[in-house]
């Protein structure tokens, strides 16, 4: 039987792009679902998210998906967080007046701020929106993607660049974590489903990944 990739749907945003990008890179069954049993039965899990973290965490908790996600990660199957889905994996976020998150990665999600400036002192717009370069740390999910390739970002809050679990770094007035990874869990701040060739390659790598470094 064909393997399945489950895209967790908790009502926050459009998941069709993720699903259609996956359809482009694999023959596996792709299901967009809010059914915990279906998520648990899948070989791979994608945890996306857009919008405000307070609303996202509210829905995640209401549906019991924090526990579900912990179980999926503990089971050893490959799990990929995207955008707010990455931020929700941290300990805490400054967004929405301060929000406790799932705490699968230690660390804080911070606001870029209104006084952000670039290397020449020029003011930087927030949200950080558009194509920026990612400095990759060796990991199977970067296979076939050139070092410093650009990915599409859109976010106003960022994950601090701390710790050994940072698998990709980006710079926008501050250096921040563009990717995190530990064992079978990987997460990216950018949108691979909107990042053209490099993004599709990352998804291609994920659906073939065995969850090992």
């Amino acid at each position, binding site marked *: 039987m064909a393997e399945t990739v489950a895209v967790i749907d908790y009502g926050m*945003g*459009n998941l*069709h*792009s993720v699903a*259609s*990008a996956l359809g*482009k890179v694999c023959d596996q069954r792709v299901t967009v679902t809010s059914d915990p049993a279906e998520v648990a039965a899948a070989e791979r899990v994608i945890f996306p998210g*857009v*919008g*405000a973290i307070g609303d996202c965490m509210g829905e995640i908790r209401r549906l019991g998906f924090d526990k579900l996600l912990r179980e999926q990660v503990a089971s050893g199957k490959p799990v990929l967080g995207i955008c707010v889905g990455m931020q929700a994996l941290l300990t805490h976020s400054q967004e929405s007046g301060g929000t406790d998150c799932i705490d699968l990665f230690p660390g804080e999600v911070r606001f870029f701020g*209104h006084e952000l400036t*670039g*290397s020449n002192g020029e003011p*930087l*717009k*927030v*949200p*950080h*929106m*558009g*194509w*920026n*370069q990612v*400095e990759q740390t060796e990991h199977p999910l970067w296979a076939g993607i050139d070092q*410093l390739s*650009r990915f*599409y970002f*859109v*976010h*106003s809050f960022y994950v601090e660049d701390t710790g050994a679990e940072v698998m990709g770094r*980006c*710079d*926008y007035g501050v250096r921040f974590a563009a990717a995190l990874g530990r064992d079978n869990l990987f997460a990216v701040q950018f*949108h691979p*489903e*909107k*990042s*053209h060739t490099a*993004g*599709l390659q990352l998804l291609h790598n994920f659906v073939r990944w065995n969850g090992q470094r």
Partner: protein
Amino acid sequence: MALAKRIIPCLDVDNGRVVKGVQFVDIRDAGDPVEIAKRYNEAGADEITFLDITASHQQRDTTVHTVERIAAEVFIPLTVGGGIRSNDDIRRMLNAGADKVGINSAAVHNPDFVKAASDRFGAQCIVVAIDAKQVSGEGEPLRWEIFTHGGRNPTGIDAVEWAARMSDYGAGEILLTSMDRDGTKNGFDLALTRAISDAVPVPVIASGGVGNLQHLADGITQGRADAVLAASIFHFGEYTVPEAKAYLREQGIEVRL
């Protein structure tokens, strides 16, 4: 490492067909927005903006279907503008695969709609489109106002104040079109672009008047735009997206190659 300035081709679509004709030499159907969006995607466009000028509400199903077909083929951000008047309109477009929606006259008629939309869907997908026209006379301090209905109807609203208000209300981005320059090929209104860009904390897309590649560069360096939108110079094959990017890069502007 730096964020790239974006180049955004814009398609005007009427009832599922591209108007203001696209003239690629080897394209099968120059009226098919899906075909054209794929071309721009392959050519390295950073985003695609799709402006729906379909007049009748009944034909919006065609638009939704077109967006679905584009989103299934094009893996770069897609903005859909035109006729977005309610959260239901936004939900339909996002569910069809749009990443952002452009809100124009509905924002002017009901500014709180922008707040409600941003609260519901997040600022990242709310683009407020502003059509501005210079109203100051010669020798007076520069002043621009918002116009609706393709530049015919004045609103008396100051463009710079409006842009600042819209970003306060939760617009994640401003798409700024100079009605004085649109279609002229004389370049962006740089003073307007800069005034708006300096007044808002969110990214600004400059639009209206591009006739050559230097105009794109000027919009970024002098207008301080974060992205530049153009239609005819790309549609009529005068320049390709890679040529535009190479030109900007020669001028020291960060682009995605």
